[in-house]
């Protein structure tokens, strides 16, 4: 039997191709959307899968949240080794309550899945960047 007619090999190749396509599409998604959209279903896995993660708690009605959003996106481009996420506080009150988020926007910094620092309000880029660098040990 030659390789082309080996059904087992074909199956393995198809599975490998699917996995590669999935990785490529995830990378493309990360390139387009550098800040992950989080909710109760993926929040824990997100903060646990990144050594350093930065999560922006926001809401639609919150004007300072919209001022802050492009800064978070900019930092996500500049620090690809850090996981950046945003979570709608109104739609995920369980997560907000777990971390005691009382005002918006709140940015929480996680290291190995544990909250280690936070910032409140629409702060300048430097405020966030200083904390990221400290967490990365730079």
């Amino acid at each position, binding site marked *: 039997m030659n390789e082309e007619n080996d059904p087992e090999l074909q199956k393995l190749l198809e599975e490998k191709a699917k996995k590669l396509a999935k990785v490529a599409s995830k990378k493309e998604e990360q390139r387009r959307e550098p800040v992950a959209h989080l909710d109760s279903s993926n929040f824990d896995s997100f903060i646990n899968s990144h050594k350093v993660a930065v999560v922006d708690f926001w809401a*639609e*009605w919150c004007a300072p949240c919209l*001022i802050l959003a*492009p*800064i978070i996106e900019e930092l996500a481009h500049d620090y690809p080794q850090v996981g950046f996420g945003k979570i709608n506080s109104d739609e995920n009150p369980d997560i907000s309550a777990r971390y005691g988020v009382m005002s918006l926007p709140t940015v929480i910094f996680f290291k190995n899945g544990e909250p280690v620092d936070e910032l409140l309000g629409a702060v300048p880029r430097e405020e966030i960047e200083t904390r990221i660098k400290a967490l990365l040990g730079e």
Partner: protein
Amino acid sequence: MKPLLLGIDGLSYSSFMKCNPRTLLMLFSSTFRGVVANKNKNNHPTPAWLSILEMTDDINESGFLSSLPDLKLIKITKAVAINIPITNPTYGEVKLPYDKTVPIKDELNKVKEAIFKNIDENPVIADVTALDRFLVNNGSIDKCEIYREIDGFVKEIINRVQDFIIFSPYGEPKDGKHEDYGVYLSTVPRPNEHDTVKLPELGILFSKLVKGDVFY
């Protein structure tokens, strides 16, 4: 002195940190603020503006109008319309072609003069299209320079007008349409500040402001 409803199409909180428009930031921290949410009328200025002027979400038009319906908000408030992008050229006392032929400064000057001419006697509904006109399909333009011009214009307006709603019906141009979120800065408080401002609500708030029927 009568109230002013002033639209600045395409104005976005997302550029406030980058462009640092001082007057708008001052208003941000000293007036009632909010977020205009518009997820389905953000392809073109006409449906967004019609939703405000008709005070309804039920708008079917998708481009400039060739004939005007009765504009409920203008009828109720007897407001003077200035440069409203529901027709091309725009509708009202200032009529400008909706393209890149009118420089930003010229539009701002014309709109400002028309507001000042009318505001003592009549409520005014005015719009500035410059930001939207020049940002659409133009990645090379200096956005913050336009913000600077608009910020200076807003400063002159608020120095003269007591009651105002300054808003954008959607954010900046993005991916062939506009950002879903616009700006709301006003002397008018809203009953529920922990909610987004809807387009018809802008018309309702302005009509209450004109009637003096505002929730303080």
